[in-house]
């Protein structure tokens, strides 16, 4: 146990474990902790040995053995009446009379969580003429769908939708609210969480339940994606989380399923004149052509090591041969070779193709979180130790310039046999 000059037992940071989250810096009552060059340091002479840093450290990165007083959380915090919050709600995103696929994926996940909590799955659906969507929501697994059907909700406006969804939460009191992390969903979830003064965890890649405490365990990549963190929202309801498209599995639709549809009114007052006005919508050229890497069954994903415009036709040929399309890692987007809509990963799209072929992709964590749902992973890389090679079902070690032309030939001849 380290001591300082005054002989006081002090806390120490274990550098290997420290994730530099800085929680301890905020907690230290005497400013003895700070960041130096990206690393957290405790000033041994200033440290009073109170152990509060140990209490808040999420990474067990603080060495301190003196018996510590019981953690004092909860003091100064009003006890929140959590009783009375029941059910798992999913925000159903609707465009032009159809529900967004991510909403159904979340309904599927909500069913699974609802089993563990022995509760209902609720659909929250604001929009205009959305009754058919409500029926679809039931077919995908909602027990009850709450609808706010109002002409003012024709197009998405943050405040209107925020008010509608917050109103539903206040009335229905779900214990959990899941929102698809589309640009609309992220915008809306932030508004609603702020209005309800509750916790919101963005871009979760895993959701689970602690049934004893009825807590949602929300797992997401954090600190730049190098680490996964499981996050809790203990004292506020609903526990809110956004999840990206394609992270959860799309459930089977059952048009015979029964459920209930209820409607709410939207209270709109004089404000109506003040709402923003959507003047125009300009479809993105590249997407008009229908490139949607999240839908492709085969993806040829090119990485920085293959970021060469001369070889792009070759990658496209391989992709087309297998009925797929070309995607990429972030550096390829940064170089300007391919547009952002083709990027796989934490700041790109989450994909779950049947076959993922990574060409000179190293497999950084930020990339991996976007493609781990792939059924089969093939990695082509000169480096055997590349992380993608480690997790691939099939790894081809070598220079892609040598390998791919041979792959194309080989596949062509085998396709002839299959047909």
């Amino acid at each position, binding site marked *: 146990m380290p001591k300082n000059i005054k002989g006081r037992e002090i806390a120490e940071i274990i550098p290997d474990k420290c994730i*530099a989250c800085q929680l301890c810096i905020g907690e230290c009552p005497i400013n003895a902790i700070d960041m130096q060059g990206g690393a957290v340091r405790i000033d041994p002479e200033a440290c009073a040995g109170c152990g509060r840093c140990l209490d808040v450290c999420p990474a067990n990165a603080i060495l301190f053995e003196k018996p510590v007083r019981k953690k004092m959380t909860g003091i100064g915090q009003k006890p929140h009446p959590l009783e009375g919050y029941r059910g798992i709600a999913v925000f159903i995103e609707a465009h032009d009379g159809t529900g967004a696929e991510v909403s159904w994926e979340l309904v599927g996940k909500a069913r699974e969580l609802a089993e563990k909590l022995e509760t209902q799955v609720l659909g929250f659906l604001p929009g205009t003429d959305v009754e058919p969507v409500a029926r679809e929501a039931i077919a995908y697994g909602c027990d009850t769908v709450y609808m706010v059907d109002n002409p003012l909700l024709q197009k998405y406006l943050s405040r209107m939708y925020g008010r509608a969804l917050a109103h539903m939460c206040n009335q229905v009191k779900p214990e959990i609210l899941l929102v698809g992390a589309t640009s609309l969903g992220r915008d809306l979830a932030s*508004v609603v969480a702020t209005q309800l003064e509750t916790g919101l965890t963005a871009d979760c890649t895993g959701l689970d339940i602690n049934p004893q405490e009825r807590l949602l365990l929300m797992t997401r990549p954090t600190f730049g994606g190098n680490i996964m963190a499981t996050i809790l929202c203990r004292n506020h309801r609903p526990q809110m989380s956004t999840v990206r498209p394609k992270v959860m599995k799309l459930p089977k639709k059952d048009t015979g399923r029964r459920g209930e549809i209820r409607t709410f009114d939207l209270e709109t007052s004089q404000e109506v004149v003040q709402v923003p006005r959507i003047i125009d919508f*300009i479809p993105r050229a590249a997407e008009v052509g229908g490139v949607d890497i999240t839908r492709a069954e085969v993806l040829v994903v090119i990485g920085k090591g293959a970021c060469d415009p001369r070889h792009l036709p070759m990658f496209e040929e391989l992709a087309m041969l297998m009925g797929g399309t070309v995607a990429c890692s972030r550096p390829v987007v940064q170089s300007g070779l391919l547009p952002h809509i083709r990027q796989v990963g934490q700041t790109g799209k989450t994909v779950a193709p049947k076959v993922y072929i990574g060409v000179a992709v190293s497999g950084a964590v930020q990339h991996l979180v976007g493609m781990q749902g792939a059924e089969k992973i093939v990695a082509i890389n000169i480096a055997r130790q590349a992380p993608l090679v480690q997790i691939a079902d099939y790894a081809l070690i070598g*220079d892609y310039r040598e390998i791919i032309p041979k792959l194309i030939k080989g596949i062509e001849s085998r396709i002839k046999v299959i047909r």
Partner: protein
Amino acid sequence: MHIICCVKQVPDTTQVKIDPATNTLVRTGVESICNPYDLVAAEAAVQLVEKYGGKVTVISMGPPQAESVLRECLALGAHEAILLSDRAFGGADTLATSYTLSQAISRIAAKDPVHLVICGKQAVDGDTGQTGPGIATRLGFNQFTYVSEIMGVDPERNTITVKREIEGGAEVIEGKLPALLTAELELSTIRYASLPELVRSLRQTVRVWGAKELGGLPERLGLKGSPTSVKEIFAPPVRGGGLVFDSGQNSERVVKDFLDTFFEKEKRLLDGLLTKDGHAQEH
């Protein structure tokens, strides 16, 4: 026009690496930078003021060292900078952060009305994108996220028109001021600060406000005001590795070996993919 920009100091996440031997984060030597989206926001604010007149105030919540990102914005041409720094702010999640920032904005606005707030669309260390909308909601401002272009401000009608990047395309939308925007990288091109600007930025004072100056409710700040907490952290899950084909000297052979195995083991999968009606030819 008075514009406030909210900026954040973040670790340069591109430098954060995992030590393959110990499987832990290597953080030594990682620099702190200004969140790139926030710099774009500050630049856009300065450009607006150059066009329509007014002033830009930049604020940042963070430790004392975060002063450097405020100076970076001053060098771009921002007029005033305020650092929100207090132990009580530490450990804040997005809810507590948006509370603190909106308290500061209200305080600034009490003296000098605010027409526009511009934030980055997200911070690269957390990637949540929740703080901007949180501030707008608390202040009751119109909110426009993912803005790639400011198409115009109409001082007479007191409106702003912006282009937002959303699913499938861009939306052009007009709304009343005061408003809050969150910036995409395309919103502006950051200038190289000129030497005189740099010198000016270094001379300027950056005011520091703590919890006392902000007023507000102490239980809403920092760790205490944060409903979410980290339960545990762990290394990302990995899939078990599979078969390795090392092409070595003879890539011809190895590719053939691979394809033989692949087509045999994944026959069902591949038959489904490759025999789809004319799939391979249609392109």
